[in-house]
């Protein structure tokens, strides 16, 4: 497998700059995820790497060597599309064999048959080989398209939201399988998604992309615990992070139009108004909690419950494990875990701590 590097890639379409000075690298056999809302430029990035799109500026390097003037065929990358990932007119076997029969590889048929048997075992699809692609379920289709990517042992795997069209339950199980497969194959993978759960659960490292710009690159823990902007903070974590307008006077943080105030951690240097970010799981209802509020709404989700609390004019959402017995309208006392607070300037930039 090889490693991939993008240096100052800029891609413009008439009237819009799809990618603006994007640079990141993917180490050998790393599972790297590009996370961002629809229209952020994720797919364009993949297409530039695969050579399906020509970038205006910047270079794409495989193992340190620029590949910009190589045709897609010559780059030896595998591309798993979100939809239309299988050739409709061919059987599953022919789909899997197609890349191996390309003029570049000319793999002998015997070799192809052996490789395909192997892959079919790994992906548990041997019973599908002779079936026409039209007769496959969504899950089977994506598994075969992943198989087609693996069978040719490409230098790099590019995956464009392969799970997002699948039914929720299937997505859960395929996520686990894909992660296991990648770890055991050690294949360098660049995976694109807008689903933050997929990013957090599967990635070794995540790059958050919005409007064609890289906002943050880091491990799932970095992105979740140390978001550099309010955009990243709100993108990951359900329910979304509470962002409360607050004010800092010497060593206490006062949350606007509520009587909540917290001792300010000494490293917070900002003075005056700022945005305080509190993850719902860091707000813990507790009989002797320091703060008081009133229950607006409870949303039981099975493994945990979202409790909407109003304190003063501010509404906070908190996340408590298991099923809560709190009723709407009850008064509730709660604590806020001080060690995991996030502090942003009013225009959304993280104040370093």
């Amino acid at each position: 497998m090889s490693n991939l590097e993008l240096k100052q890639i800029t891609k413009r379409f008439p009237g819009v700059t799809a990618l603006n000075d994007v640079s990141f690298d993917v180490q050998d056999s790393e599972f790297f995820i590009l996370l961002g809302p629809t229209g952020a430029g994720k797919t364009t990035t993949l297409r530039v790497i695969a050579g399906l799109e020509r970038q205006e500026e910047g270079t794409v390097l495989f193992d340190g060597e620029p590949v910009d003037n190589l045709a897609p065929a010559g780059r030896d990358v595998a591309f798993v599309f979100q939809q239309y990932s299988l050739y409709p007119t061919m059987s599953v076997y022919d789909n899997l064999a197609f890349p191996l029969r390309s003029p570049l590889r000319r793999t002998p048929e015997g070799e192809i048959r052996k490789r395909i048997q192997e892959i079919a075992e790994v992906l548990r699809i041997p019973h599908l080989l002779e079936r026409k692609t039209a007769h496959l379920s969504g899950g089977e289709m994506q598994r075969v398209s992943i198989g087609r990517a693996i069978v040719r042992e490409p230098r790099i795997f590019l995956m464009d939201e392969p799970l997002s069209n699948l039914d929720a339950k299937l997505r859960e199980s395929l996520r686990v399988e894909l992660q296991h497969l990648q770890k055991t194959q050690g294949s360098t993978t660049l995976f694109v998604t807008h689903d933050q759960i997929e990013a957090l659960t599967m990635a070794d490292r995540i790059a958050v992309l919005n409007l064609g710009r890289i906002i943050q690159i880091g491990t799932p823990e970095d992105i979740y615990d140390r978001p550099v902007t309010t955009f990243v903070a709100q993108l990951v974590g359900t329910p979304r992070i509470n962002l409360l307008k607050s004010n800092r006077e010497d060593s206490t943080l006062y949350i606007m139009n509520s009587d909540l105030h917290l001792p300010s951690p000494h490293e917070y240097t900002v003075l005056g108004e700022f945005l305080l970010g509190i993850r719902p799981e860091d707000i813990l209802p507790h009989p002797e909690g320091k703060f008081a509020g009133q229950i607006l709404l409870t949303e039981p989700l099975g493994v945990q419950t979202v409790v909407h609390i109003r304190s003063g004019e501010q509404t906070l959402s908190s996340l408590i494990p298991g099923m809560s017995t709190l009723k709407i309208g009850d008064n509730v006392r709660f604590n806020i875990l001080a060690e995991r607070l996030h502090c942003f300037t009013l225009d959304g930039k993280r104040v370093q701590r």
Partner: protein
Amino acid sequence: MANFEQTGPGKPVLEATRVDKVTPGYRLGHNLRALIVVLLAIVGLIPVFVIVITAFKTRPDAIHVPPKLIFTPSLEGLVFLFTERASASPSRLEELKKAAEEVQLGLVDRIALNAGQEITGPSDYVFRLRNSLIIAGISTLLSVVLAIFSAYAFSRYGVKGKGDLLFFILSTRMLPAVVVTVPLFLMYTQLKLHDTHLGMILLYTVFNLSLAVWLMKGFFDEIPREYEEAALVDGYTRMQAFFKIVLPQAVTGIAATTVFCLIFAWNEYAFALMLTSEKARTAPPSIATMLGIGGIEWTAIAAGSLGFLIPVVIVTFALRNYLLRGVTFGAVRK
């Protein structure tokens, strides 16, 4: 691994039956509307029905006043269509009748005999039909092949000025044939293409090209680009991707386009009338002039029209779901 896709026998297409759509009153209205439409369809097809029965009538039955519905069918129309005849003198008729008793005369001659005529040779209808087939067939083949390539280019690449280019191609079809034939006539006479198969094939190819390009572009637009791009990434060139992945998926589109071009070329009259006279004359102009020479040869004309009509009816059935696109130049997709 819990997979909740209820594949089963495929999700059935359930016809929503709303409560107010099953009341007796609604049912009655529904059946009434169905009846009216069926009646209208029948009335609409009377002319076609008339052609069919006239083709199998004898001449006297055909011009019977009032029009005869019950009649003994005869092949006279067909025989007259395919033969040149002369009316035989009474003495000649006697001779032929005697020959008929000794079973020397073929069925065809005997039919002519009943109508008091003697066959002198084959008519030119078969020759005209052959011209129609050659010219329509080859021109359709050419226009479809050319259209496949240019339509693919238009569909996949933003060819400069694509909008007006397509319109420009279409405009050649928007004009009355007559407007184009005046200059063509002159060009063809100078280039010795007048009344030649080549001349007509060239014209019909271009005539059909605009329709074929628009139709094929519509069909190509419906094939997702991801398939070709996947082939590129799998190590194939753009041309190989076109032949191995795109074309196999466009087969139904190509079939529909071919048949539409065939129908338009087969039915064409104006160009054939003005740019051919004898050698390359196709069926439509020759059927129209048949009326002139043979006097009231209605049974032959009906037979000729029927022969010309049947392939079209069969094809209309085969093409049911593509009709919308073909007739509106692919502008409206079903």
